[in-house]
């Protein structure tokens, strides 16, 4: 393996892990509510910007991070309670536009309250690159990868072993049946939005030391996360993680070996190709339409 290839691979998996977390956020909300949340990228941005803000207040790093995640989670709850719940039964396009409206509001709010400038969060454990096989990787990239793995494992446990997790799965499979079984569907929805917001925030905080952050930082991340979720098959959590990794690595290789200007296009070209041949994503189930 050449050093160059390894370098692109390191870039790719770091990006990929971030996309995976954002994609997971899409999947969780989609599973519970069949809504595609176009404000997912704004949760990511809010995590990063929130941390910058709390650090600015003089809070120590771990506290600032938790505070930012808590704040973003509140926004997730709020989005469900005040925007999605009242619009129950609206068409897919209407719901998409509501979440787009929410994303504009969140960007607008952050811009007004915390400003428009770019900010950097200090890396968690320094900026001294680590040499591996002639290529370099930042300690922060290891943080991104490590925390992503932990979060994915924790989520698996949550969905497979806890009552709440199982209730979310049940609701996603059949909402009416879940309701009949005595599952509090409203609570399930509420929790899913909060959980997904927290995940997004975590992703935003992890990458902010590498990519910098400002109020518009979530737009592209949100779109790429959507790509990851669709590529893996909507609603398939592990699919979203795989999708994120594929998109991240393809993008880095595209930038390295093809034309760097087209790296953002790689994710979308990939998704179109996959959808043309497998209309429900790589790992998605083919749905049947009810007449």
């Amino acid at each position, binding site marked *: 393996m050449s050093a160059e290839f390894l*370098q*692109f691979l390191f870039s790719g998996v770091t990006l990929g892990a971030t996309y995976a977390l954002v994609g997971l956020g899409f999947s969780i909300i989609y599973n519970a509510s069949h809504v595609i949340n176009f404000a997912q990228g704004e949760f990511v941005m809010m995590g990063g910007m929130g941390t910058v803000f709390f650090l600015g207040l003089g809070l120590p790093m771990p506290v600032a991070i938790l505070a930012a995640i808590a704040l973003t989670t509140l926004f997730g709850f709020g989005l469900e309670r005040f925007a999605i719940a009242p619009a129950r039964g609206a068409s897919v396009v209407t719901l998409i536009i509501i979440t787009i409206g929410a994303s504009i509001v969140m960007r607008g709010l952050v811009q007004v309250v915390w400003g*428009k*400038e770019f*900010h*950097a969060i200090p890396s968690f454990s320094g900026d001294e690159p680590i040499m591996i096989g002639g290529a*370099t990787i930042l300690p922060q990239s290891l943080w991104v990868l490590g925390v992503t793995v932990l979060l994915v494992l924790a989520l698996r446990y949550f969905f497979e072993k806890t009552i709440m997790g199982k209730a979310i799965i049940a609701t996603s499979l059949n909402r009416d049946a879940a309701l009949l079984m005595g599952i509090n569907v409203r609570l399930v929805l509420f929790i899913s939005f909060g959980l997904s917001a927290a995940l997004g925030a975590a992703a935003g905080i992890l990458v902010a030391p590498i990519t*910098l952050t400002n109020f518009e930082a979530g737009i592209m991340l949100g779109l790429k996360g959507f790509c990851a979720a669709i590529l893996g098959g909507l609603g398939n959590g592990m699919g979203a993680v795989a999708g994120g990794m594929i998109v991240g690595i393809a993008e880095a290789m595209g930038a390295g070996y093809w034309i760097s200007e087209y790296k953002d296009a790689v994710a979308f070209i990939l998704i179109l190709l996959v959808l043309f041949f497998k209309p429900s994503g790589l790992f998605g189930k083919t749905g049947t339409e009810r007449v």
Partner: protein
Amino acid sequence: MTSRQNGFKNTLCALGMVAGAFAVGTTQAEAADPIKIGTFLSVTGPASFLGDPELKTLELYIEQINEGGGVLGRQIELIQYDVGVDSKKAITAVKRLVSQDEVDVIVGGSTSGATMAVVPIVQKAKVPFISLAGAVAIVEPVKPWVFKTPHTDKMACGKIFEDLQARGLTTIAMISGTGGFGKSMNGQCTKLAPAYNINIAAAESYGPKDTDMTAQLTKIKGVDGVQAVVNAGFGQGPAIVTKNYRQLGMTMPLYQSHGVASRKFIELAGDAAEGVRLPAAALLVADMLEDSDPQKAVVQAYTKDYSEAYGGSVSTFGGHAYDGLQIAISAIARAGSTDKQAVRDEIEKTSGYVGTGGVVNMSATDHLGLDLSAFKMLEIKNGDWTIVK
């Protein structure tokens, strides 16, 4: 079916809304005959680095001037539109400034792209326009109604190449932003390189919103014989380039342009900024200037005003806006009216104006009026600017 029958009522509602909206639009333009200065800046988006301090500076000094009684006994009104980095929005904004707001002079345009897009409109409308953007194409060839205050990209290339020669370096790589300024500076450097016996061995570029440039830099790293890297661009991109550069363990000298001349750059790039060189105006090193330097008093005063009003540190971009505003105001004062032709003529006659960018001497053939002497080569050491002697 019935929804068709209501087409009439619906359209009536729409008419009401349209008329209502226009009414809101027109009532804004009434006031007691102030002098109107229009501006369109990149207050949001990837170039907010530029637009934000520019707007703050304009607001700060216009308030100051108004408190001091205004100009020609008239108050000054600032009319501003945020155009992000979209030239099309800049066009809409400038059309609005000249035809609806009927401004007397325009001081604005954070990016070269936005400035070049509106040049045909201000030329046609015959409104004096002082741009705050970098590209040399704005003033070369000279356009009667268009002026600018920042040093050009061509001058930045010249200054960097002089420094390379002094260090005995001849082979470089360029990495440039794809937006107006990066593209233009890349072109200027390429044109100028042979005159300084400099060979550009590799050229890469990145988009205005990119967050990872390791791929481009890895490619540059793989090119043999590169002795230095020049990054043409503004905004957060160069900060990421600088971080990635250190991450990849690249140790040859890295040059930035005056497009990043603010403390924000050092803050964003962190330790990676150590040793980076860039040409910039004296404003950044106000306290390090010789006492005999005519600019010292001006830049110290501006630094004091700006930091007192907004906290934080100054950038040269705010300085460009300061210069633009002062040049416009004194031209109006000398002209004794806001007659656009007279104001334009007076702007062109600006001479000996000591600003944050240098001493400005404009003429019919030079709508910038700055020379290389006003440009300092700076190096970042211990998180601060130092002057390279």
